[in-house]
């Protein structure tokens, strides 16, 4: 099926790498890893490195809704680049964002008070109800199209971009603000530590001695629109979102399928939609969490589909694993690397792992790639793949 191309007309990002795209690219170019030895956003005895978005401007602060603060920051940047900072000019704009933490009613103070005393102040509940991620952003920017929050664990951000692609292709709206946002939260930190997959040192994606992931936070947002909409608005962009694929493993709640069959199907689908063949993929921004299982499966699949020479990196060595935001942040990075003509070294990698079967780029690498693949593998076994291109 032939669809009108979807243009990336604006991008916004915030993470431990920086408060906007320019600052993030500068950090990535220098190989700067802004991790903290332990979380400072909440009290905890868990001594594991984390990547906090310390440059979130105060003006975005929303009590108890940090994920939305992060999203708003990235949305503003993306809308500004798209030329929509002063209003949406009557366009039908949809909002589709992925998250994990902000979709849960998990305010510990509220719950523990209720548990102990049988009643608790309801402000956290009001915040949860009134600030549902996508609906809140939709209202905040004055959008009149659909709003939907994707809660597909760690592939949420990529899947939200896939939903946006479908909306645009079928004329559900003219423009979509899409991506992902997630805050660093005590609850997933406890959960991931209980699963034994958090590294006590800065993470090392694809390294033989990797010990697991570090948690991070942030938001990555793209303004997507049909080519005709961008042309009509006089908002030309060379970047395109060309394809999306998604497939379940049907295997395990937390572990990826060892043969990577679901990931392979997702990548094939994304390439089919993009109308490209494997040799046209210039580089891969891998999910690359640095857990033993994830990196092994991704390495095998990339080697099988693209050969061991494919330029691969993971940006999680700079951002940590930002869960529902990861797909959005990494789509922004992959698109930006296409535009900039370089990609950063994959932080933390030192030793080749035969079980992974490929070595990520070790330092800043110049590239004339025209197409990039970004992958996301989620708890629950969903795999998502996005293909970005530049003209």
């Amino acid at each position, binding site marked *: 099926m032939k669809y009108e191309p979807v243009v990336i007309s604006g991008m916004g990002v915030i993470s431990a790498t920086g408060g906007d795209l320019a600052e993030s690219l500068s950090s990535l170019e220098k190989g700067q890893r802004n991790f903290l030895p332990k979380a400072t956003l909440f009290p905890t005895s868990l001594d594991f490195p984390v990547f906090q978005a310390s440059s979130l401007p105060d003006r975005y602060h929303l009590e108890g809704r940090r994920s939305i603060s992060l999203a708003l920051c990235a949305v503003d940047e993306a809308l500004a680049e798209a030329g929509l900072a002063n209003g949406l000019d009557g366009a039908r704009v949809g909002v589709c964002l992925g998250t994990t933490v902000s979709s849960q009613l998990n305010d510990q103070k509220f719950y523990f008070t209720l548990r102990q005393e049988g009643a608790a102040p309801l402000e956290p509940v009001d915040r949860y109800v009134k600030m549902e991620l996508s609906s809140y952003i939709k209202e905040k920017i004055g959008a009149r*199209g659909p709003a939907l*929050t994707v809660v597909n664990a760690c592939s949420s951000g990529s899947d939200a971009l896939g939903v946006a692609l479908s909306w645009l292709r079928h004329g559900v709206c003219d423009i979509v603000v899409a991506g992902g946002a997630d805050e660093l939260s005590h609850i997933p930190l406890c959960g991931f530590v209980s699963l034994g997959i958090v590294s006590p040192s800065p993470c090392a994606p694809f390294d033989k001695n990797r010990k697991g992931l570090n948690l991070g936070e942030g938001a990555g947002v793209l303004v997507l629109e049909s080519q005709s909409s961008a042309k009509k608005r006089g908002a030309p962009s060379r970047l395109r979102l060309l394809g999306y694929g998604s497939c*379940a493993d049907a295997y395990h709640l937390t572990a990826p399928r060892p043969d990577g069959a679901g990931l392979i199907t997702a990548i094939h689908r994304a390439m089919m939609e993009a109308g490209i063949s494997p040799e046209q993929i210039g580089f891969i921004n891998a999910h690359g969490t640095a857990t033993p299982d994830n990196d092994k499966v991704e390495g095998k699949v990339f080697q099988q589909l693209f050969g061991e020479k494919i330029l691969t990196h993971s940006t999680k060595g700079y951002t940590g694993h930002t869960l529902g935001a990861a797909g959005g942040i990494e789509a922004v990075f992959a698109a930006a690397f296409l535009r900039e003509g370089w990609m950063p070294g994959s932080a933390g990698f030192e030793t080749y792992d035969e079980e992974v079967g490929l070595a990520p780029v070790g330092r800043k690498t110049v590239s004339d790639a025209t197409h990039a693949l970004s992958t996301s593998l989620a708890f629950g076994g969903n795999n998502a793949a996005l293909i970005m291109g530049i003209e």
Partner: protein
Amino acid sequence: MFINGMGIVFAGGSGIEKFEGALAGPWVAPNSHNEAGLPSYQADLAGAGRQDLLKKIRRADKMSKMAVVAAADAAEDAGLENLAAHRVGVILSTAHGPHVTTFKFLDGIYDYGEEEVSPITFSNSVHNSTCSYIAQTMDIQGPTLTVTQFFHSFYNALSLASLWLADDRVDYALVGGVEQYGDVLSWIVDQKLTTAKDGMIKPFNLTPTPQVPGEGAAFFLVSKTAMGKAYCQVDDIFLGWDADRAIKADIRVIDSDGMAPDESAYLACGSSGVPMAAYSPLFGSMMSGSAFNMAAAALTLKHQRVYPNPVADNPHNLPLLPKDFGVDINRMSCLRFDCRGEAMGAHLSRA
């Protein structure tokens, strides 16, 4: 897009026959009251079939178990076997997700400390764990997606299913809504909304509608073309109230159930004169209740049988669906307003 199969788990049991029986029968009082005396409609999985599937996912929470049973029933109802051999996707909608499991995980932090929490409870507290169980038990190797948007969660999922089919991303989609009852949520809604202390949701009171928390799962097997025993066609899924279009419906099913403090937006539906039905008194108040009301509409179209309003208190003199509604039923409109007064819904027609 056609609805070819349905699976339902609700307080009245599991399966389409049970649901149809409830639609045809009189209103039934809530089957549970908590320690505070608050009523609720809770699903009883012990009486459900599918014990083979439930055994496979014995570590899963009730939300996942209800959804797995409903999804498997929907596929079987459509006659679709060996799902691994087909291109099937799953889209699950839920307003609150696995909140009961989330609170259980918080109990772990409180009781045992942050280093001693249960990894199994954590894994099950992730929103898409339910989709994962569906994919695992039914061997579905297509795309799986979990979405939320409170009141419009289900219709958004349904809309996305139609796009997946149009995109040729899948040949079949299992799309559904699921909510689990929990005492914490029951306490919250009792504080924020008006609880029906007598257990009776009066869906046409509207200002406000008294609520009774419900739980359950409703799944639909949809595809581009009609299979052998299709229930109905989904003509379109709409966002925004379109009175001109809606007036063409023979019956309008509204999702009023007291989950918003003021549901007076539904009063506008009455002016068109289209007979109105609401079935929330049978399964309880839940933001994904749209899926259950749509199932009732699909059964109405397929069987050309009118299911009377289970509770017909009508203080606003709305045009309620009469028991002796005699005309052919060709087109139905299903509708949910959110707390901002924005509508989303679906138009259905005979297959």
